[in-house]
């Protein structure tokens, strides 16, 4: 019994991490139709930023890391994506793919290919006893912070003028502009929030794994894609749902797959995506046409 509960907690923690990643990507997709392959590099930069600012107190380093990533996201928008704004989804995907490898190459050049270790949030390494379960403090932090961020995002989108503008832009960008919504502001905000989520995901990721490599962004971004596909393209909350479902699947498969098949778990997941896309090209919960935030 406690093993199942333990797995559930793991799934919740992992799902929270996945949700942060997925939402960052989904936000941009819902407003711009852009699937940002380079989102993984935002996470990677966030991780390395923690290393660069390691000498500072953690709170400061974290804030700076978030600032750096947001800055990178805005730079991405201004330099790379603005010119291709009207292009097809595939072109955008290809552009973000090129951007991703470009940034990786840059970091590779300056930081080297060897993995570096980073000690982040080491104080949360211990566990606490809750209801007979041993739960890591880090897990609790991840779950808690993510919940707060999700609520914050919901509040922002529903209760603030800019949030409503973004929801309108997500549904019909041109009409929103015709009403006076500033395109550049909405896009910059989307990249900013996306960057912030990426940075926080990076903090938790580095806290969990303790290592940094220039290619560390690839796995998270793939997870993000899968979560979004699973939940449904174009629906922000579906992306979060997909993330938690994916985490649950992952944890359960890890726990219960026979040993011979276990290494193929990832392949099974990705093939599963292809199958899902075939039967439901818009994801499990997605719907063609109108895009929802």
């Amino acid at each position, binding site marked *: 019994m406690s093993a199942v509960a333990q797995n559930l907690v793991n799934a919740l923690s992992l799902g929270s991490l996945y949700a942060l990643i997925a939402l960052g990507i989904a936000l941009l997709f819902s407003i711009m139709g852009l699937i940002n392959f380079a989102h993984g590099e935002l996470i990677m930069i966030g991780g390395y930023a923690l290393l660069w600012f390691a000498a500072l107190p953690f709170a400061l380093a974290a804030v700076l890391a978030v600032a750096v990533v947001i800055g990178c996201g805005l730079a991405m928008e201004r330099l790379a994506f603005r010119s291709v704004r009207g292009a097809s989804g595939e072109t955008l*995907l290809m552009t973000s793919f090129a951007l991703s490898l470009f940034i990786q190459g840059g970091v590779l050049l300056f930081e080297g290919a060897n993995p570096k270790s980073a000690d982040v949030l080491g104080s949360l390494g211990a566990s606490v006893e809750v209801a007979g379960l041993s739960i890591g403090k880090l897990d609790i932090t991840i779950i808690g912070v993510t919940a707060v961020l999700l609520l914050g995002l919901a509040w922002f989108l529903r209760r603030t003028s800019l949030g409503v503008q973004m929801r309108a832009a997500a549904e019909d960008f041109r009409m929103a502009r015709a009403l006076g919504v500033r395109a550049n502001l909405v896009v910059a905000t989307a990249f900013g929030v996306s960057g912030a989520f990426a940075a926080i995901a990076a903090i938790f990721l580095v806290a969990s794994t303790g290592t940094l490599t220039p290619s560390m962004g690839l796995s998270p971004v793939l997870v993000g894609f899968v979560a979004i596909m699973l939940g449904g393209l174009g629906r922000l909350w579906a992306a979060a749902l997909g993330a938690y479902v994916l985490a649950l699947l992952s944890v359960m498969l890890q726990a219960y797959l026979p040993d011979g098949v276990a290494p193929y778990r990832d*392949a099974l997941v990705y093939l599963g995506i292809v199958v899902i896309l075939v039967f439901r090209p818009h994801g499990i919960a997605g719907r063609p046409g109108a895009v929802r935030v």
Partner: protein
Amino acid sequence: MTSSRTSVLARSAPAVICTLLVLAVSGLALLGAETTQRTATQMLVMGVITVGTYIFVGNSGVLSFGHVVFVAVGAYATALMTIPHSLKQALLPALPGWLMELELGLPEALLISGLLSVLVAVVFSLLTLRLEGMAAGIASLALLISVNVVINNWDAVTHGSQGIVGIPADLTIGATVPWLIGAIAVAMAYQLSRSGFRLRASREDSVAAAALGIRIRRDRSIALVISAFVCGVGGGLYAHFLGALTPGDVYLQLTLLTLLMLIVGGIRSLSGAVIGTIFISVLAELLRRIEAGGAVGPIELPPHPGIQQLILALTLLLTLLLRPGGITSGRELGFSPPGWIGGRRKGSHTGPTADEPATRSSAASPRAEHGVPTAKQGHPS
């Protein structure tokens, strides 16, 4: 001569010119040092892969990450079929008997690898050809990742992440050139065929394409299958060029490289695929030398790992942003197809203001009035 025969000859001109170009470059390389010849051989191999990719991507306009899957299948299949029996026994003891015994010459192995890739393509196309645009891109990406995972873990057959060594690395320029010429010929033949013609037409106007429905899916399948065959052959050649094969060799770096060659050269034309291959091969080799450090001409450079990827990715990025049509902008060498097949006329402003994000629903769309797609459809050009 009937006019149709004349025009077929004329329209084959690009293939002829490309072939001559390839022969010229190869001839030049043969005069050079050992390393130059090796670079040229790699270029020819990449040419086969790029042309193979072009057959599908260039004609259908569907940008896919999946062509490297076919390269991977071809590479591993050829490796397994051409490694000496004794080496196989030592390296891959778990191989089934018939595969263990099998030892073929390169041409036979390449052709069989091509057919194997075709098989994979058939399965893939059955699954995914209903998908459009973004979903197709992501599906192809998912396939690429899945195959990579399988290769990494199927130790019995692929030797997992350690890869296969001992592949006869005896590839010469002379041995590779015929395959590239063959690939160019196949690409040209498909381009001139009815299926290719229809596919290119659908590329320009996806609304019409949607209306044609099944027809287009069938043409796409045909293109994909042919593309897979050529890519599979290219993969086999690649394995023989490398001599040792690891999963990483047929994964994202190669994807970047081939897409780069296609897009920089010009994704819409066969000439673009060939020119792009030559251009990027030279660039990549230059960058590789810079990356490794040492003497480049009179200059002594320290090693700069990562700079090759950096500059190559930057090249792709700049091309997509500034000149999406690539070097050739959709035109063929020696023959410019009529405007609507070769690519958009430069300078014409179509559709809504270009700084719109790719929109799905559009309130203010005059679609009803004119029946033409307003959102900027399609493909880098």
